[in-house]
C-alpha cells in the first residue's frame, strides 16, 4: 500500500514536471510564432523605400556567389550580386545588400528582412511549397569529390556504403546523403560552411564530399588535394527566393531574368565568373522554351509528421546529454585541479593558472572549438566528438575553477586550523575537511553551469557533431517551420535540465537542514 502511494506520488511528480515543461514550451512557442510568422500585413515598403530592393545573401559563401570585393570590402561581388543588380535595375530600384546566414535565407525572406534571397539558393520541393521561387537561373551538378588515391574506389555514392561523406547542411546534397544513409549505411557529415568539408577530405576525416560542382571546382582551385568524379550524382538549380506573399514581385523578377537570358547578359555574368558551359546553354534554352528540365532527383515527402523525426531527435538528445556529461566531468576534474593550484600553488603556478582561466573565459568557446578542431588538425587530428568534449570541457574548467576557488576560500580559517591541530596533513585537510565543505557551497553554481553547458553544447555543430539543436534545425529546414521542432527541442532540453536542478536542490536541502 505504502509502495503504491509512493508510486502514485512519484507519478504525480512526473506529471507535474511534464506539465511545467509543456507550459514553458508553449510559452516559448507563442513567442516563436509571433516572431517567426510571416508578417503579411506589414508593408515591406515601410522598412525599405520603394526605390530600394533589399536582397539577402551570405558573403561567407564567397565567390562565385557572393563575396566581399577584395578591392572594396564594403561592396559585394559575385554572380548572385550581378543578378540582384539586374533584377533591381529591371524593377527601377537600387539594390541594397543584407547579410544573412545561408541556412536562414528562407526564414529571413519570409520574415521580411529583405525582398529577395540570392546566394546559390537551391530549388527544392519543400522550398517551392512554402515560398515564392524564381525560375531556375542556373543549373548545377551535384558532384562527388574524393582523394586522388580513392578515385577508382569511390566513383559514386553507392561505393561509399558505411563511409563518412561530408556536405553542407540544409542542402539538396545533404538530403541525398540522408537518403543514402537509410539505404546503404553511408554516414552523412554536415558542415556549416563549404570550405571545411574539403579540407577535412584532404585531411582524411571524411572519405568524400558531395556538393555543387560550382563549389567543388572552386575548392579544387583553393585547397586542392582531391579529384572531382566526372559522373554527376544529380542535377539541381539555383533560384531567387521571395516571401510566399510576394509572388507578384517574383513574377516581375522572372520576366527580367528571362530577358537577361535572351539578351545574353546573364551568360556574360556566368562567363565572367567562369561557370558557363554547354549544359548551361541547354538549360537556358529549356527555360526560355518555358520548360525547365524536370528535377532528376525526387526527394520523397519532405514534410510529414513529427513521428518520423522523433527517433533522430531523441538520438541527438542522447548525444547532447552524453557530450555534456563527459565535458562536465572533464571540466569538474580539471577545474578542481586548477582551483587547488590557484589556492595552494606557488606564485608562478598561480600566475600561469590565472592566465589559463582568463584566456578561456575571455575568448568565445566557438573560437576555441574552431582552433581545436581545424586549427590544430595539422598537429593532432581529433575526432569531432572528442574535440567537442575536450573543447567544452577545457572551456568550462575555467568557470568551474573559479567556483571551486571561491568556495575553498570561503571555508572559515578556524576549520582549517582545527584540522591542523589534529595532525592532518595539508592534503588530508583539503580532501577531508576543506574540499567536502567547499563542494556544498559550489553545488548550486555547478548545477547552473551544467545546465548552461547542456545548452552551449549546441555550439559543437560547427565542428560537425549533430546534437539536439542541429538535428532540430535540420528537421525545421526540412518541414519549413520551427514551431513543432522548436517545441520538441525545448521540451527535450527541459527534460534533461529540470531533473538535474531538482536533484541539486534536494541535495542542497539535505546538506543545509540535515
Amino acid at each position, binding site marked *: 500500500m505504502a509502495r503504491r502511494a509512493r508510486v502514485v506520488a512519484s507519478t504525480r511528480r512526473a506529471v507535474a514536471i511534464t506539465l511545467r515543461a509543456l507550459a514553458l514550451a508553449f510559452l516559448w512557442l507563442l513567442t516563436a510564432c509571433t516572431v517567426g510568422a510571416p508578417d503579411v500585413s506589414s508593408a515591406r515598403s515601410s522598412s525599405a523605400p520603394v526605390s530600394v530592393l533589399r536582397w539577402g545573401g551570405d558573403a561567407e559563401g564567397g565567390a562565385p556567389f557572393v563575396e566581399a570585393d577584395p578591392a572594396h570590402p564594403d561592396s559585394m561581388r559575385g554572380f548572385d550580386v550581378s543578378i540582384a543588380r539586374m533584377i533591381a535595375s529591371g524593377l527601377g530600384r537600387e539594390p541594397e545588400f543584407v547579410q544573412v546566414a545561408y541556412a536562414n535565407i528562407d526564414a529571413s525572406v519570409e520574415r521580411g528582412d529583405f525582398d529577395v534571397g540570392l546566394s546559390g539558393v537551391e530549388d527544392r520541393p519543400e522550398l517551392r511549397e512554402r515560398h515564392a521561387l524564381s525560375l531556375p537561373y542556373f543549373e548545377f551538378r551535384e558532384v562527388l569529390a574524393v582523394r586522388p588515391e580513392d578515385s577508382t574506389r569511390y566513383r559514386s555514392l553507392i561505393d561509399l556504403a558505411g563511409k563518412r561523406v561530408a556536405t553542407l547542411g540544409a542542402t539538396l546534397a545533404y538530403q541525398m546523403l540522408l537518403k543514402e544513409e537509410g539505404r546503404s549505411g553511408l554516414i552523412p557529415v554536415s558542415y556549416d560552411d563549404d570550405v571545411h568539408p574539403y579540407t577535412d577530405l584532404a585531411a582524411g576525416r571524411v572519405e568524400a564530399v558531395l556538393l555543387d560542382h560550382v563549389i567543388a571546382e572552386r575548392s579544387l582551385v583553393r585547397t586542392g588535394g582531391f579529384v572531382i568524379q566526372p559522373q554527376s550524382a544529380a542535377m539541381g538549380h539555383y533560384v531567387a527566393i521571395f516571401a510566399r506573399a510576394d509572388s507578384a514581385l517574383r513574377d516581375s523578377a522572372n520576366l527580367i531574368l528571362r530577358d537577361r537570358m535572351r539578351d545574353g547578359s546573364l551568360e556574360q555574368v556566368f562567363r565572367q565568373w567562369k561557370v558557363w558551359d554547354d549544359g548551361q546553354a541547354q538549360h537556358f534554352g529549356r527555360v526560355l522554351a518555358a520548360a525547365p528540365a524536370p528535377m532528376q532527383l525526387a526527394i520523397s515527402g519532405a514534410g510529414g509528421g513529427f513521428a518520423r523525426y522523433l527517433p533522430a531527435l531523441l538520438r541527438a538528445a542522447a548525444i547532447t546529454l552524453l557530450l555534456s556529461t563527459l565535458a562536465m566531468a572533464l571540466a569538474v576534474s580539471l577545474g578542481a585541479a586548477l582551483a587547488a593550484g590557484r589556492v595552494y600553488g606557488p606564485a608562478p603556478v598561480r600566475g600561469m593558472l590565472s592566465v589559463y582561466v582568463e584566456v578561456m573565459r575571455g575568448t568565445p568557446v566557438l573560437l576555441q572549438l574552431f582552433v581545436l578542431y581545424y586549427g590544430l588538425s595539422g598537429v593532432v587530428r581529433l575526432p569531432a566528438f572528442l574535440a567537442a568534449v575536450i573543447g567544452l570541457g577545457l572551456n568550462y574548467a575555467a568557470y568551474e575553477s573559479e567556483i571551486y576557488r571561491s568556495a575553498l576560500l570561503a571555508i572559515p580559517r578556524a576549520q582549517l586550523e582545527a584540522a*591542523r591541530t589534529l595532525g592532518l596533513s595539508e592534503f*588530508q585537510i583539503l580532501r577531508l575537511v576543506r574540499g567536502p565543505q567547499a563542494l556544498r557551497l559550489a553545488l548550486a553554481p555547478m548545477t547552473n553551469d551544467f545546465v548552461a553547458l547542456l545548452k552551449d553544447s549546441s555550439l559543437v555543430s560547427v565542428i560537425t557533431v549533430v546534437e539536439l539543436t542541429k538535428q532540430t534545425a535540420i528537421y525545421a529546414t526540412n518541414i519549413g517551420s520551427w514551431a513543432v521542432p522548436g517545441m520538441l527541442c525545448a521540451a527535450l532540453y527541459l527534460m534533461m535540465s529540470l531533473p538535474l536542478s531538482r536533484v541539486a536542490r534536494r541535495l542542497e536541502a539535505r546538506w543545509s537542514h*540535515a
Partner: protein
Amino acid sequence: MSAVLEVRDLAVSRGEQHVLKGLDLTVASGEIWALMGVSGAGKTTVLRSIAALQPFSAGFITVGNVTLKPGALLPESRLRALRGKVGMVFQAHALFEHLSVLDNVTLSPIHALGVTRERAETVARGLLESLGVLARVDALPRQLSGGEAQRVAIARALALDPLLLLMDEPTSALDPARRGALGDTLRALARSGRGLLISTHDVEFAEAHADRVAVLSHGVLVEHGAARDVLQRPQHAATRELLASPDA
C-alpha cells in the same frame, strides 16, 4: 610532577608592535592553569603559538620532548610529533560542519594516526560517554547546543591523547550550571595526568577550578602563582583591574 609545557622568553611581534614579550610559563602534568587578562592582552596568541598556528619571533616552546623555535611556521609534515601532544579546543569549537559528532572525533585517529575505524569508534564512544554526549553521536554540529558542541570539541581534542590541552575562552558561551560541569570535566582530565592551559577572563571560574593563574597585560606576564593567592591578594594593577572589571 613533570613539566608538560615550558615556555621561555616567548615574544611575538606584528611589524613594529610587540604582541607578546618575554613570556615564561611552565605547566606541570596534572595542573590546571588559567591564563587571564582583559580582551586583547594576548591570551589567544599564547595558545596559538603553543599550538604552532602562529609564528613567534623569540624564545622557545617545549611540549614533552618537542621544541618549537622562532621563525616561520613549519610545514605540517614536520609538526607531526607536536600534534599528538597538544590538543586545542577553539573558542567557537570549530567542529567540522559536514561531519557527524562521531566522525568529528574519529577523523584524526583514523587519518593522522592510522588507527582502524573500529578501534577509533570505540575510543570515541568512550570519550563521548565520559563527557555526557554519547546520545548525540549521530548529530551534525549545527544541531548541537553550545555546551554539547564544546564537549564534542573536547572529545575530538582528547582522541589523540594529548599531554597538554589548550582551551580558548571555554566559559564564554556557558550558563553557570554548565560552567560547574566543565570545571569537573577539567579536573578529571588533570587527574589523568594531563596539563591544562585555559585562557579566560572569568575570575569566578578561575578561582573555583584552576590550580594556578597567570595574568597577562599588554603582552607581558605581570603576575602568576597559586589561583587563590593571585586572585585574593593581587599584586599588580592589571590584576586588580581585571578583578574589578564588570564582566569578571
